């Protein structure tokens, strides 16, 4: 997106880099601590919602690597997410019930799709990229929908969750340990994404967003950077899909349908693009609004949510987190 670059607040306001780092780690520890304690005290419904927020937040964050840092709006993240779900399902149904195998096959599935999408779609810019990713996700949707003997077709696949096994010790997942596991994966993924965006590689991505022609003129191979960016984004999206499979224990064509990609974009716009943490907040706001508004609007909660979404685009282009940071800096 054009407009002033949204720098992380830790860089913009800190008197020194060391103080900024301390503030970041303190904030990170507080947030993770609260999220770790929450499932113990929350009732089951809200606990499950919180776990789901983390999973969808990871999807939103993966999409932010493209939207916020490279300036490419992907409407194809449902393909990565869905193949993550189906990859995990394949591991659990066809092989053995192993947690790590499920995650690995989820990542593999998403990685293959991401390689395919990255190769073709990164030749295009702006809306052409958006439309191509959308069409790619529909290709995989049609394949999964029609290939009934393997994917279960419209009915999808159901399976059992594997035990939580670390270093050879396995216990069945409880809702609380599942939440902790998801939290650990999402927190690590966040740190990894943050490291990526602050690395020289991430800086090149940001310069592609700001001025692609100039980045190319300086001598960077823009296409290669974009391909790697899409691959990374797809892998994180596949990871969230695999986590989703662990939590809900079923895979359906709906997970590949582009509406999922649209929701990932909504999380980004609501929370704030180019912030990584913003999409997680956005997912939280979206799912909370869904629960809250469906009491008044039943299944039509998307009408008020859609209106709020449009209002945020018009009046808060940096999203909730970007807006909050700017207010704090003033």
């Amino acid at each position: 997106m054009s407009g002033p670059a949204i720098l992380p607040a830790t860089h913009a306001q800190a008197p020194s880099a060391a103080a900024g780092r301390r503030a970041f780690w303190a904030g990170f520890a507080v947030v993770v601590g609260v999220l770790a304690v929450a499932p113990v005290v929350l009732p089951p419904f809200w606990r499950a919602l919180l776990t789901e927020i983390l999973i969808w937040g990871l999807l939103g964050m993966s999409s932010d690597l493209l939207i916020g840092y490279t300036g490419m709006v992907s409407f194809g993240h449902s393909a990565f997410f869905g193949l993550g779900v189906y990859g995990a399902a394949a591991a659990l149904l066809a092989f053995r019930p192993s947690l790590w195998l499920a995650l690995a096959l989820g990542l593999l599935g998403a990685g293959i799709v991401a390689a395919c999408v990255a190769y073709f779609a990164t030749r295009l810019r702006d809306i052409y990229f958006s439309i191509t990713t959308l069409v790619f996700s529909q290709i995989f949707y049609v394949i999964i929908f029609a290939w009934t003997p393997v994917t279960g077709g419209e009915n999808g696949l159901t399976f059992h969750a594997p035990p939580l096994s670390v270093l050879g010790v396995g216990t069945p997942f409880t809702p609380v340990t599942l939440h902790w596991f998801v939290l650990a994966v999402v927190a690590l993924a966040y740190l990894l994404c943050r490291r990526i965006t602050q690395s020289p590689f991430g800086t090149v991505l940001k310069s592609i967003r700001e001025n692609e022609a100039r980045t190319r003129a300086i001598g960077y191979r823009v296409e290669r950077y974009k391909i790697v960016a899409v691959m990374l984004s797809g892998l994180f999206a596949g990871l969230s899909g695999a986590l989703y499979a662990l939590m809900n224990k079923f895979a359906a064509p709906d997970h590949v349908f582009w509406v999922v990609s649209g929701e990932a974009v909504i999380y980004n716009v609501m929370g704030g693009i180019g912030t990584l943490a913003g999409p997680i907040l956005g997912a939280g706001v979206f799912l909370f609004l869904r629960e809250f508004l469906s009491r008044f609007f039943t299944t039509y909660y998307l009408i008020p949510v859609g209106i709020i979404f449009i209002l945020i685009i018009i009046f808060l282009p940096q999203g909730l987190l970007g807006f909050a940071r700017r207010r704090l800096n003033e």
Partner: protein
Amino acid sequence: MAQIVPLDQLLIQILNGVINGMIIALVASGLTLIFGIMDVVNFAHGEFYMLGAYVGTTVLALTHSFWLALLAASLVIFILGGAIQVTTLRPLLGRDPLTSLLATFGVSLVLQQYALWQYGPVTRQIGEPFKGQFPLFYISYPWYRIVVAGLSGAIVAGLWLFLKRSTYGIWIRATTQDRVMAAAMGIPVPMVHTAVFGLGTAMAGASGVLVAPLVGVDFTMGLQVIIRAFIVVVVGGMGNLGGSVAAAIFIGLLEALASIWVSPVIAVLVSFAVLILTLLVRPHGLFAPTPR
């Protein structure tokens, strides 16, 4: 082993393909008009198509006149499209084009859920306005399908004439070429944008009414058409009216011919493949002149 396809079956599928192509052409030319003039990718285009069909069925139930339903639906969607442009797209003028894509995505969510809320999830079937059929080889082919293709072609041709010949058409083309200069010449650019968005969405609405007797009306019909319209618009060259029509017929034909051998669900993949090949070989569109 590949079977030899009888000639009559081939001809019937070619006719089907051209007719489907003309219907998509009408939806896609509204989309490409809006993109060409405003740089807006209207994600909600399918929803205007769907709402047009609903308004059409409502008016048809009240008046029993198909032509009145077509006219009323076009008018209602024109006003709705204009109102949405003023409230959601006008404030975004001058921002990144992707912002308007996101805003119209929000609009599509609202409109789709509104239709579900207002009209319910049940598919509405309406009869073809004329029942006549003519014999074509071993089947009898409904005249209505021919009329739909003809009307779609006439509306697109009317749009082309409007853009080429009328004063307002000149205003619209001037705005496309240079927004600032057009404003300096006294053309009310914001009004032109609103009118063009209304016009483009009205074409989608009209097309929704025309296909309603063929496919039935439900709240997801927009989702089914929007991706195909996107493909047609990209293959035809974004903002290129003639290219969109050619691409629509081309893709309609390919899908119809493919469905001789595979199920229609798989036949959709053909148009996806066309899109990808187009993007690889000629990213600016298969039916558009090479940009200098």
